[in-house]
């Protein structure tokens, strides 16, 4: 089963829509609650990243019998140095975003920590695609 969600850049009040829906589905699939928690944290961080940095994006979630695949693709500034972005505490978030309690530089590290596989592809000035896979 595949479900897609639009993510609107800059709109923090709507961040979390995809992750709460995915959580609902995973609960119905009777996935272990700790596994659900980790998947949902990773997807929520991904949503917040798009909202905080990009102009628009889409999360496409594929549920298989043995795994979940999340692809978050955005149109945005891209990440010039992915290795640095992966470091805990490194952030390029604007002061306005930090003001709202986001932008602590934990987004990508948190996502990596909570999924089995994380793949980042980015082109500066075009956008970023993050792929996350977790086995049930």
């Amino acid at each position, binding site marked *: *089963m595949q479900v897609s969600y639009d993510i609107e850049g800059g709109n923090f009040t709507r961040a*979390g829509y995809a*992750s*709460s829906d995915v*959580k609902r*589905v995973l*609960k*119905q*699939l*009777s996935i272990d*609650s700790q596994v659900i*928690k980790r998947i*949902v*944290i990773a997807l*929520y961080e991904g949503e917040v990243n798009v909202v905080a940095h990009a102009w628009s994006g889409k999360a496409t979630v594929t*549920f*298989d*019998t*043995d795994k979940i695949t999340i692809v978050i693709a955005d149109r945005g500034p891209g990440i010039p140095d992915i290795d640095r972005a992966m470091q805990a505490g490194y952030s390029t978030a604007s002061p306005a975003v930090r003001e709202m309690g986001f932008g602590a530089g934990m987004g990508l590290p948190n996502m990596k920590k909570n999924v089995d596989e994380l793949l980042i592809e980015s082109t500066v000035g075009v956008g970023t695609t993050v792929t996350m896979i977790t086995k*049930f």
Partner: protein
Amino acid sequence: MSKGFYHALKINPERCTGCTHCVMECPTGALRIRNGKAFIHPNWCVDCAECMRSCPSEAIYVEQDDFNRIFDYQCRVALVPALFFAQFSKTRSEEEICSALCSIGFTHIVPVELTAGVVAERMRQKIAQAERNPSISPFCPAIARLLQIRFPDLTDNILNVKSPFEASATLFRRELIEQGVDSEQIGMFYVTPCAAKIAEVKGNDNCNGLIQGVLNMDFLYNKVYHIIQSHSAEPSSSTAQMPAPLSTDEMCWSQTGGEARHFAGRTLAIDEIHNVIEFIERTELTGEIQTVDFLELRACDRSCCGGVLAPANRFIASERLDKRAQRHSEQSMLATTTTGQARDSLDNTIDSPPYMPMAKLTYTGGIEEVLRQMNSVRNIMCFLPGIDCGACGSPGCQALAEDIVRGEAHLSNCIFMQRQMEAAGKLSNQSALLIMERVWGKERMEKNCFKKGAKYEGK
């Protein structure tokens, strides 16, 4: 816990007109209309009584024990919550109300919140020992059930401490036995402001033998009010045994914030079941829920003063309760004085068994099967109109799609689908009517000038 929930909410089929108000209001989506009557899915209902509040036909009721059963016992104890006194105007003294309770047959009045201070102390210890945040109050039984079915991984966070009513009943029963009263002759009757408390008492094996019956607060209010009105001219002749006075904090235990005020750290008090659901869903997602030390969650707006069986307006009752409480002492009688062995042994019996998760699952089967069913629901949703009118007997289009996939409803239950099927020549007019009758019953299709809002209503 595998035997499922006990339910105190019942539907009177004679009165139910199948109007869908309850179906649309239920916060857990547990109601359907079938054959013209409301039907409650027993595993999904948390006894919050939102359905009863929304019912325009008084078709949903809360069962209670026969009042005359109190006379099966020599020692007839009324377990009365502080908010019962707040149902009466401030000019009615607690003595007056207690003596009226005695004149209708009770021999002892025990305030439910007698042990609130002791319960709070035990909760404080458990919060300090808790391995993960937040600790959640076990006080509101509708909320405990809501967590069990809808947020099952939070059941471990519910503090395993008895509610004051159970602790107070245990304590007072021991005191009576210490005084030489035969245990068989003690009848304890709990006066409840809500359906969930009844379900808690009746569904709890520990309450077997401890509490002999449950009386609805609105029923008892009418009885007491009548006595007070007719006796007010003459001084009371009954020998009211006044209960031990509560402290201000104990009086206010059932108010919103009444528990949270006892604990240090980051505490939040949230009332009304939709507010509770919204709060948990949001803060679980953002992780903020873990930054809270203690959560007091109550199913009713204005907590127990908003209970479905509490007759007074909830805002007025809650203000009266605060005012009455201010007249009480700051000091808790029970927490500061020792009243014998009974009090000492309370500490050993105040813990309650853990809460078990009982997840509400829409589908059954393994992952592959559930995914297949979810895909079917998504396919069906392409056709349903998405206006959530409830005319199919389910709470909305999504719920109808799920019911169809579970084999409990048909696509043709949707009146929009019926029209399309008729237009396409796939359904005859007569069959469409028959389908409507299956959901709504035969009478629904007939003219009836006596129904609510019609010209002979009430005649």
